[in-house]
């Protein structure tokens, strides 16, 4: 199983821009299929964890 991470900086002014960027990264990274995406929310960023089964 291959695991890798990506980070998206958080926008302190609101969620909308951060959420859009998070979705863009998830959609882009999962285009080849067979990929699980998890996330952790940090004070200054969102950590995306991808698992390839």
């Amino acid at each position, binding site marked *: 199983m*291959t695991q*890798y*991470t*990506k*980070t*998206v*900086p*958080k*926008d*302190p*002014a609101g969620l909308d*821009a*951060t959420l*859009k*960027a998070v979705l*863009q*990264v998830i959609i*882009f*990274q999962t*285009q*080849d299929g067979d990929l699980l995406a998890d996330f*952790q929310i*940090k*004070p*200054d960023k969102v*950590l995306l964890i*991808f698992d390839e089964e």
Partner: protein
Amino acid sequence: MSTMSQTVRYTAVGLGLGLAALAGSGCASSETQVQKAAKDWCMTIRGSQVIPVYPLTEDIQPGDIFLVQVPIDQQQKLYNQSGFLALDNHLARLNPAGYADFYAHNFFAKNSTTDLPLDWIRPGGTNQSWQLAPHAAFPSYSFSVQNGAGLNLAVPVEGVPVGLSLLASAAASGTVQIQDAHTVGVDTLSLFNQVQQWSTTNADFLKNFGTSETAKNHNYLRIVTRLYLTGRMTVTLTDASSRSAGADAGVPKPVNLLVPQLPNSSNSPATTLQNYTNAFSTLSSIVAAATDAKDAAGNILPGGSLRLAAASSRSVSLDETFNPPLVVGYLGFDCAILPDGSLGAPIPTHANLDPNYKLNQLAVFSSNLVNNIDTFGLIQKNYAAATSAQKLAIRQKALALGLIPSLTPDETFIKVLRRSVDANDPVMTQKFKTLSEFNPAP
């Protein structure tokens, strides 16, 4: 003649008293005074979007690597509290290899063999330190002094306390001009590549400081990319007190030497000019005596040399020269140290220190992400249209650029390549652009 000698003696005593009073005012809390001087000065430099160096030094170069073991949010607090960041853990000094390309088309002569920064610090056969380097300019900074209230701008130059002593005033306003400023720098990309090579060699050492990406706090390497130096500072002080002439009590002000005498039958304009010139010379010798710090062996101690530039009864202007020039500030980037001793993406130091940067960081990230996805789409399209031999060449190029960990088979290449897309990493972004422009032979 004896009156002049007496006046000179008084002014010398007055200067000594003034300096002692300034020094004495810090005795109650000398540490606080020093911290205040550091912060005030550094806030001045920070106003010019440069990270201050304190104390001023000659011994810092592009390519210097420092270990930073303070979390970013704590660094931001320290930066606001102290005004500067201590560069106390100096790990290594790299000699940037990118100078030649960086300056080849502007500051180096054709076929030059200039070795930076050595050839700018000590140009062969001259005493013109840094004169060949690109010039820089800083705005002048204003400040004021209130008796008992301390400086609202403390600066680490001798001109301010000496000038205050000459004025012996309860209140003064002034300006500091950073002059003869020069800069030297190198591009982040080439230096980051060198730092990565250095980190590979020293991974065992760096592992001691590595933290996982999910850790709350990280250790960083801070790498200096650009320096700003000053060769001269001019301090101008103007007496802002409202007392009238002749109301001084105690020791007379040194600058009173410069109060012009009204012409009379024996006092022609030429004599007045001569009196002024004599008084100016006297003040200059006082300034020189006050700053001729010598050690026990009689050697002049290091530091700037102070010279009286102009004076009147209510103002004094002093030039402090630093030869060779001293570094007042720098720019650089930070890299997080990862558990295996490898390094994270380079983030500009000033961005790390600005809590509001995250807003801009997301905007930059989103913009980069769109560009990265477009670039990746182009690579994917080119790859799909390529012959088997061309596909192999593209995969080999991707491997050489470090975009894939090994020479992956055709069917999984795009999937593996996609993992490397990272809008936070300008180096990877550049590598993807390089791959998108790669044209394998048909």
